[in-house]
């Protein structure tokens, strides 16, 4: 064993030199396609547009997360109104305190819908991961196959089907409540049940539209990076709506 310990940075520089000596031992490393700004080259200091292969992806993701934050605030506003209304009442003519809140019985189909939405999130994640599996991506980037896009399209179609199923399930739940004469206007509690589920369904419908757009984009878009961005953003949005639903479902099921 050598008595001299090599500091890691020297070790790294040493390896960078021998990276492409023609022996075929390791692939050539090109800084533009390598990764993570190695070798003192901080990509954030590069001109905009030259910050590595994931530059646009990370921009879109950041924009999406700011947008999801706004969506979260939208629901926080509604949920805080939910708690305020649940706790408020009035005094009637006989000085009795009256709280009109009658908890809405949640149709049991919502459990099934939740499971379907969870499954759809899993299949969406499969689509997203398949868009980034390196070996296949390399093939597709070179133009040897479109295996990643095809695989992602298959998973996205599954997600689309499950998402549609969820929306149909929500529709059935509203229908079941209507059959029991529980409507939007019936009670403060039902105001919130319908407001929350419909607002979430609208957001999920946007997600369904994004899925359809991503499926079209997977066929039409010529740039692999654009296809990756489409799938990635759609799937993150889908996950967020799934997570939001679990929170809202728990609130409606146990919080009333």
């Amino acid at each position, binding site marked *: 064993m050598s008595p001299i310990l090599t500091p890691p940075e020297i070790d790294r520089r040493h390896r960078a030199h021998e990276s492409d000596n023609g022996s075929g031992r390791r692939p050539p490393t090109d800084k533009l396609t390598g990764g993570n700004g190695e070798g003192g080259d901080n990509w954030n200091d590069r001109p905009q547009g030259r910050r590595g292969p994931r530059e646009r992806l990370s921009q879109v993701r950041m*924009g999406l997360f700011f947008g999801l934050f706004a969506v979260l605030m939208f629901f926080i*506003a509604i949920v805080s109104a939910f708690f305020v209304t649940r706790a408020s009442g009035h005094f009637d003519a006989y000085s009795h305190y009256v709280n009109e809140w009658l908890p809405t019985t949640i149709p049991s189909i919502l459990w099934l819908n939740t499971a379907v939405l969870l499954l759809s999130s899993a299949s969406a994640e499969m689509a997203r991961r398949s868009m980034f599996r390196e070996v296949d991506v390399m093939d597709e980037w070179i133009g040897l196959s479109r295996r990643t896009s095809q695989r992602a399209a298959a998973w996205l179609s599954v997600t689309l089907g499950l998402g549609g199923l969820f929306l149909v399930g929500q529709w059935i739940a509203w229908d079941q409540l209507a059959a029991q004469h529980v409507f939007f206007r019936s009670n403060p509690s039902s105001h919130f049940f319908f407001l929350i589920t419909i607002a979430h369904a609208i957001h999920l419908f946007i997600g369904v539209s994004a899925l359809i757009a991503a499926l079209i984009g997977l066929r039409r878009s010529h740039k692999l990076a654009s296809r990756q961005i489409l799938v990635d953003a759609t799937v993150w949005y889908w996950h967020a709506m799934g997570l939001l639903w679990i929170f809202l479902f728990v609130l409606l099921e146990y919080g009333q």
Partner: protein
Amino acid sequence: MTAQHSRWTHHRTVGFGYVAISLAAACVGTVLSLLMRLHLTWPAWSLPLHGLILPEEYLALVTMHGTLMLFFVLTVAPQSGFGNLILPAQIGARRMAFPRLNAASMGLTGLALLVLLAAFFVPGGSPISGWTAYPPLSATALAGPGQGEGMDVWLAAIALFSLASTLGAINTLTTIVKLRGEGMSWQRLPLTVWGWFTAALLSVLVFSVLLAALAMLFCDRHLQSGFFLPTGDLVNGVLLQHHGDGSPLLWLHLFWFFGHPEVYIAILPGMGLTSMVLANFAHRRVFAYRLMIATTLLIGFLGILVWGHHMFVAGLNPFAGSAFALSSMAIALPSSAKVLSWLATIWRSRPRLTTPMLFALGFVSLFITGGLTGPILAQPILDEYLHNTFFVVAHFHLIMAMAGIFGLFCATYYWFPLLFGRLLSEPLGKLHFAGTLIGAYGTFLPMHLTGLAGEPRQYAQLTGGGSGPAGQLLQTTLPLQHGITYAAFFLACAQLPFLLNLVLTLRSHLLATPNPWSATTMEWASQDFDEASTEDKPTGLVTYRGPCHYSEDGVSFLPQWESGATSTLPPE
């Protein structure tokens, strides 16, 4: 989502679109305010082609003036307008992060303005419940002529506007975080960018809360829910049919959670610009630069904790009132730090008193005058007397409206050479400044006095109150009322030199030199920097230091984009 190669999605096009929207809104809003002044002073005066202004029409004027000015002028122009025109160049980028989204949000904002203006023409006319639209009177068509379709149109317009502002803010935030050029670290960002950044954070945080409140109000109006309506509420003798124990206070909480940050969205870009312009023309560094960044963020943060001070007289729990009073007064700390930094920056310097510098100084002056009444109104006890008087009108017009407008004029004069290659005329600009300053103070300072005397706001008529004590009290304010009206007309006429200046300068062939103000920030790096360029190639610019590096002796300066060679300041 590919790189954009279209002029329509170019950030300058989008920025000019926003400025045009707010210019149109400002013209309409100004005319409305003059009509209000005319009616207050001469109630018998009849508007040509229309006739007498009825009380409900006066309330419609109040509502539309507030909505137009606050949403479509003070939010759109500084944040979205100049944000798009200047922001990318100032951080060394060539474009905004999402050009198509940017163009779409501009289009939505324009659509929102059209929808809002349509309220004048629907049956019943425009809504009458103020820009704050308090229920229960905003929740039913029974409350007045404009509360039917007019109110629905208003709701639609503001919902569109919220959506557009959120999308625009997402774009601004992503641009600042992700697209900064080489060497542009967070601490080197000009304070204008920090202003835009904080305002965009606030926009993402609060506009969706407003959207949720609007959706619930819509349900109350049309779907018989009772989110904001108490049980057994009588409006105009009719019992409202709905279920539940809603509370108008809930609307106030949601609305002002949006509404107070909204006024910071309007003023933060102006604060940042004032810092930069003062330093630019005083040839000094910004005093306590990092502290100024911190105070910008702190004002934004405290701004979301103070909404309750709008509700002291609305039936808020007194304990909550105390908490909100404390947080409101806490905002005085970062605000005073900002004022002190502005004063320290120009202290004993020999500033070049150009028109943009004058407007920046005017901003400081108005910010102090308007700000001093802030801690007064933050006291629940004092606010109880003052809340529904003109004192509040004076306060927010000075600190938000006038300071905001001065920030906008400062931006226009300062960046005009960058945007149009020509310098606006200095004599006309100084005339414009003097007239606007005198008009602004002449209009809004006396309102403190009428407010202290007890003049209520949102009252359509002050005369004819009978011979009772209230009538006599209002009679005593009438001479001041006349003065305020004359000053308001003077203020409006003081804008004519500005319009003349614009026309004359745009027609002249006298081109400005590059960097005519000896500025140090990146947008002045080269004049053809993004002239019509929609290509997505690197700018080739590197940021080497923070802004405002002027030498101690006041002879030379180092712009952000120069690697080492100092430039000499031109002789006075």
